[in-house]
């Protein structure tokens, strides 16, 4: 494969490459070194147009598969109704759900296969949804808009759930009672402040949200706004401890260097 060398432009020319990198769960600061393979790939993309274009295609493909997984299941909705469409969407995402009036959950097995019995429950709305670890995102909620009886929603470890997703949860404000947001790396305070719409919320799990800086303070503020909700996973002094440790370490270092 002929690799076309990029022209070295001088002056105020191009600096870095226009390719989206895969969003990592931990925001990598520029100081932590990249693994060797990524460094090599980055070096090549800086010097060869082909590599740059391949990387841009691969990130476009990644976004396209995400959009495809979260597309609106209009055909299923026309043929079988809202509930079956929502059920099919959740199963395709490899999540699980429970119809209202039924006691057993519908889930795909480890290989991703699921039974098609859910097609018989066209009249039953969905009551509990568990999409932990899936790639559900904000546009995917279009499939669940019709489920006005949704009581439990578990979004544990969903890497695509972000503040915009939380801002759309107001559609469940009459019915949602349990919400599990632990381990979602993209959620921050901006999205949590949109949860005040959920008047019926009784249980909220906010453990291990890496982008929330002051989890204890956020818990206090949310409890003010949602008085009947029980928030788990966060202690009141989380976020304070780091400050106390900083003060201690500052005191230690000043006594060490001052004298």
């Amino acid at each position, binding site marked *: 494969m002929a690799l076309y060398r990029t022209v070295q432009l001088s002056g105020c020319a191009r600096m870095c490459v226009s390719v*989206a990198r895969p969003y990592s769960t931990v925001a990598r*600061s*520029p100081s932590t070194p990249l693994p060797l393979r990524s460094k090599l790939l980055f070096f090549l993309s800086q010097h060869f147009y082909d590599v740059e274009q391949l990387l841009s295609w691969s990130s476009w493909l990644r976004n396209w598969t995400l959009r495809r997984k979260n597309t609106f299941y209009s055909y299923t909705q026309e043929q079988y109704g809202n509930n079956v469409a929502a059920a099919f969407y959740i199963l395709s995402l490899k999540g699980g759900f429970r119809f209202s009036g039924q006691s057993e959950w519908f889930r795909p097995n480890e290989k991703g296969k699921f039974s098609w019995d859910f097609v018989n429950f066209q009249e039953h709305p969905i009551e509990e949804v568990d999409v932990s670890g899936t790639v559900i995102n*904000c546009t995917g909620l279009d499939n669940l808009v019709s489920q006005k009886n949704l009581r439990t929603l578990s979004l544990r470890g969903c890497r695509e759930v972000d503040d915009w997703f939380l801002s759309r949860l107001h559609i469940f404000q009459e019915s949602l009672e349990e919400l599990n947001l632990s381990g979602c790396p993209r959620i921050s305070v*901006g999205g949590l402040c949109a949860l005040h719409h959920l008047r019926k919320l009784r249980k909220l799990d906010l453990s291990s949200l890496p982008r929330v800086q002051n989890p204890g303070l*956020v818990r206090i503020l949310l409890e003010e706004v949602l008085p009947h909700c029980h928030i788990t996973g966060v202690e009141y002094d989380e976020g304070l401890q780091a400050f106390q440790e900083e003060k201690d370490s500052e005191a230690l270092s000043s006594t060490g260097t001052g004298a």
Partner: protein
Amino acid sequence: FHSHRNINQDVSLTVPPAQLAAMRKHAVRAMPGSDWQPLEITPGLPPERADVVIVGGGVVGWSVAYWLKRKERIRDGVRVLVVEKDPTYSQASTVLSVGGIRQQFSLPENIHLSLASAEFLRSINEHLGVLNEDPVDLQFNHSGYLFIASEKGAGIMEENYRTQRYAGAKVTLLSPAQVKEKFPWLNTEGVALASYGLENEGWFDPWSLLNALRRKAISMGVYQCFGEVTGFRYSTHSMPTDDSHQMSFKRIRYVNVRMPNSLEYQPVECAIVVNAAGAHSGKVADLAGIGSGPKDTLAAVPVPVEPRKRYVYVLHCPDGPGLDTPFLIDYSGVYCRREGLGGNYIAGLSPEEEEEPDTRDLEVDYNFFQDRIWPLLAHRVPAFECTKVASAWAGYYDYNTFDQNCILGLHPLVNNMYFATGFSGHGLQQSPAAGRALAELILDGGFRTLDLSALGFERIFHQEPVLERSIV
């Protein structure tokens, strides 16, 4: 006779490490691929030729640059140059903005611009992600806008609500009882109706958006120059109209960009000029000779954009409204939003025409808060009766004196000057969509995604203002 000496210790062959480093640097500069030049030239000069020169490096200017590069069909198909006067952005409207985005307008074009911008911000990492750089963090607070209307404005608010729902905005109307139940800290005296945005509304950090657009645009090959546009060199040709009057049309050939703190300037030969200079767009348009024609002709109509100073006050109130505080806009015009988690709030008010402050500098008048804002604010939110002004700043609106809506489009008399200005306080929230619209105008010849022809120059020449029925 020399005694046996180890050749490695010979004095003439050992070179001190500092000198070695200098020699290595010299060698690198001598190799091809270095930017050493025998004749010293001023650093930071713009290129001598560019296809599109964007005057103004705020969020609108960089948005246009980004979309131009994104829409070009071949690599380096369009050479774009963004000229910004102030590298510190100390007086730029973008960074001094309060940062809100809403869809609650009465003009459908405004609603669509805002909706499209929210759509852009939602998938901002798809659009503006750069390899090996941190993802963009806008710090978007999804708290929604709450507009409050009195008896007089309730009818208009209902009609606006219908327009907004028809355009696709997620807005809901609330009665005073519902407002009291949702926001118990609000005083509902005098409130007849309230309009609350449920999705795509809130506020974010304008500096991160500006930097994200700038980083991505530069990585796609946009040239950035810090300098001031001091003049245009244009050619004029005149044509007779049907009733034998001469109309003269201009075409800009060169843009004179003057370097900061210097008299040196570079004439940049260009094909298209985009005026995205914000509050100073009127001055830039004057440089092109717009508005200096014979009286009562089209050539005498200037671009009606001028800077207007607006104050923003940061308040501290420990007992104020909590995490669910929306961006509150009262019918008296006063607005207030939460800032951070520490009981700080941001408030402001658009002054009346008669009491417009002086725009020569950005000094803050604290009496304005005491006399005008605080009574109205304390009446609406009783908790703000005991509040302290922690700090304040002032910024410019690029105020469209004609009808306070943006001007997007080609000027009829200057054949290659596009305008993306006059946003009157909505520049930040409409910038991604306005940039895309202008890039479509330039590269595709017409609007493709949103039809914004109602916001062009025709309305100014025909004297038909396109007015927004709600304020702020």
